[in-house]
């Protein structure tokens, strides 16, 4: 189980780094910058910004076209378009649609620090090699897997692949830790009733 916990620490650290920090590979083409976005959750996967201020993006499976209408914009804010938190699509004459680029991503992704911390605690406790440490490690492992599954559910609409991976890890960890915990309780109960 210690290896499963350590694998969890690596997996969760990787997911946290990957999902909280989207990065883009951009190519300048004629009058536009075309970017493919990797990592992150709830961010557009493809973004094109044209010199005339119009943009095109593929977000959550739908195509969005529009014109940037900046409020308090300066040149640098246009140069780092991936930092925008929301895009207002204006369709003349009056219709406007606000597309929140980040949605729940920040919260859902940073929630990953909870199972990560619990996993680290479980590993530390288990490595102490004391009876109570191992028992506490087991408890932390159960809680960590519960939180991992909960975060996977929250992450699902934003990044299904990562959510699936996290959910699978949480389920395996939960089954494993739960079984050990149950066996231990049975053992102690037998001791006290014999």
């Amino acid at each position: 189980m210690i290896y499963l916990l350590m694998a969890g620490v690596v997996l969760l650290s990787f997911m946290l780094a990957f999902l909280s920090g989207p990065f883009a590979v951009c190519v300048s083409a004629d009058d536009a910058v075309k970017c493919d976005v990797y990592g992150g959750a709830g961010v557009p996967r493809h973004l094109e910004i044209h010199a005339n201020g119009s943009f095109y993006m593929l977000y959550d499976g739908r195509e969005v076209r529009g014109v940037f209408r900046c409020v308090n914009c300066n040149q640098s804010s246009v140069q780092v378009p991936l930092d925008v938190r929301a895009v207002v699509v204006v369709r003349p004459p009056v219709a406007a649609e606000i597309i929140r680029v980040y949605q729940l991503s920040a919260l859902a992704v940073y929630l990953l620090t909870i199972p990560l911390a619990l996993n680290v605690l479980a590993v530390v406790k288990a490595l102490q090699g004391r009876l109570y440490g191992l028992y506490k490690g087991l408890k932390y492992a159960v809680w960590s897997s519960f939180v991992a599954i909960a975060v996977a559910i929250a992450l699902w609409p934003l990044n299904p692949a990562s959510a699936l991976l996290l959910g699978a890890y949480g389920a395996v960890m939960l089954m494993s830790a739960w079984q050990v915990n149950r066996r231990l309780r049975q053992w102690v109960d037998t001791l006290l009733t014999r």
Partner: protein
Amino acid sequence: MIRLLSLLLERPRKKTELWRLSRLNYNSFVKHLDLLVERGLVAERDGYYTLTDRGLREAKEILEWLKRTFQ
């Protein structure tokens, strides 16, 4: 219960020390300790609580099993 066994596995302890380290409320602590004594896992000698031979054997078995399970 596991915490009490773990603390006594390290060394014999006085009741007050055991209670303080157990982080249980006093009534709960006494209930658990009495049960361990009643089942012959713990005994009191010269004011110190210690694991009996059976208690020591069982606690070590649990410890070894948990270590194996974790590895």
